[in-house]
C-alpha cells in the first residue's frame, strides 16, 4: 500500500471517535474508517481538512512510499 496514514493516532490524540471526526470533516464515519484502514485514499481537499482538524500538516498524517516495482 503506497499511501500510509497515521489518522487513527492523531484522532486518538484529539480524543474523538470516528463519527465525530467524520462530522468535523463533513464525511461519514465509514469514510474515516476506510481511510484509517488504508482502504481509501482521500482527495487533496479531504486530506487538507483532516490535517486542519488534527492541527498538523498533511505529511504528518499521510506518507507516500514508493513501491519497489514502481517505474
Amino acid at each position: 500500500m503506497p499511501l500510509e496514514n497515521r489518522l487513527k493516532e492523531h484522532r486518538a490524540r484529539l480524543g474523538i471517535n470516528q463519527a465525530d471526526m467524520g462530522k468535523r470533516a463533513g464525511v461519514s464515519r465509514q469514510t474515516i474508517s476506510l481511510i484509517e484502514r488504508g482502504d481509501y485514499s482521500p482527495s487533496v481537499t479531504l486530506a487538507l481538512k483532516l490535517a486542519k482538524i488534527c492541527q498538523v500538516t498533511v505529511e504528518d498524517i499521510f506518507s507516500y512510499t514508493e513501491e519497489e516495482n514502481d517505474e
Partner: protein
Amino acid sequence: MMNKTKKKNVYVKYAVIMCISGALGGILGGVMEMGQVHGVLTGIQEGMQFFLNSVRNWMLPLMAICGVIALVLCEQYMGRLKRAGEAMEQAEDEAYERLDYELEAAGSRGMIVSFAGSIAMILLLATGYSTKYIESLNGSGIMWFLLEILTFIALEVYLNVWQIRYVRVIQKIYPDKKGDPTSLKFPKQWLESCDEAEKECIYQASYKGYQTVMKWAPILTFVALILHMFFDTGILAIVMPSVIWLVTSVTYCRACLQNKGEKLSK
C-alpha cells in the same frame, strides 16, 4: 518499435477471433439447417411451447411459491438490517466496521431478491399475458387469470414497498443520506448526499454494471437474431437488447463528453 509490434499483435488477435467466430457461426448454421431438415427444430419448438403452456397452467401456484420465497427472504434481510443498524449506534470502531459490512450485505442481498422476485413475476405472467390467450378462456378461466393478475400486482407492490422501506431504514441509520425513494429524482438526490468515498464506491459499481450490459446486450442481440432466423421469435426480441445496447453506449459517451465540456467551460 515495441508499441508497433503490440498494435500489430492486437489486430492479428482480432482477426483470429473474427475467423473463429465466423467458423463457429458457420458450424452453428449448418447444425441448425441439419436440424431443420430432420425436424429437430420443430421438436425443440414444440417442446418450448409445451413448457410455456405448462408454466401458464401452473402460473398461480408458481407465483405463490416465488412470492413466498421472496417475502420470507426480504423480511429476513430487513430484520438483519434493523438489528445491524441498532447495534451500530453503540459500536466501537472494529465492531462498527463488521456491522457496516453486515448492513451492506443484508441490504444488497435483499435488493437482489426483490429485483429477482419482481422479474420472476413478470416472466411468469408473460406466459399468459396476451389477448389471444385471454379471449380463449371460459368463465372460470377468466376468474383464475384475474386472480393471477391480482397476485402479480400484490407481490409487485410488496417488493417495491420493500425497496422503499430499505431506503428509509438506511436513512434512519445514516441521517445524512437524503432523497425521496418514491421520486424519480431519487438517484440524483441520493448521490448528492454521499461523500467522496461513497461516490467512488457508487461509480465503481456503476461502471461494473455498464461493463456487464455492454458484454451481454450484444450477445443477447445476436442470440435473438439467430433464434429469429430458425424459430421466428419475432423482431421485438432483437430490438429490445439492441436498444438497450445503443442507449447504454450513447449515454456513456454523452456523459463523458458532457463532463469534459463542463470542465472546459469553467
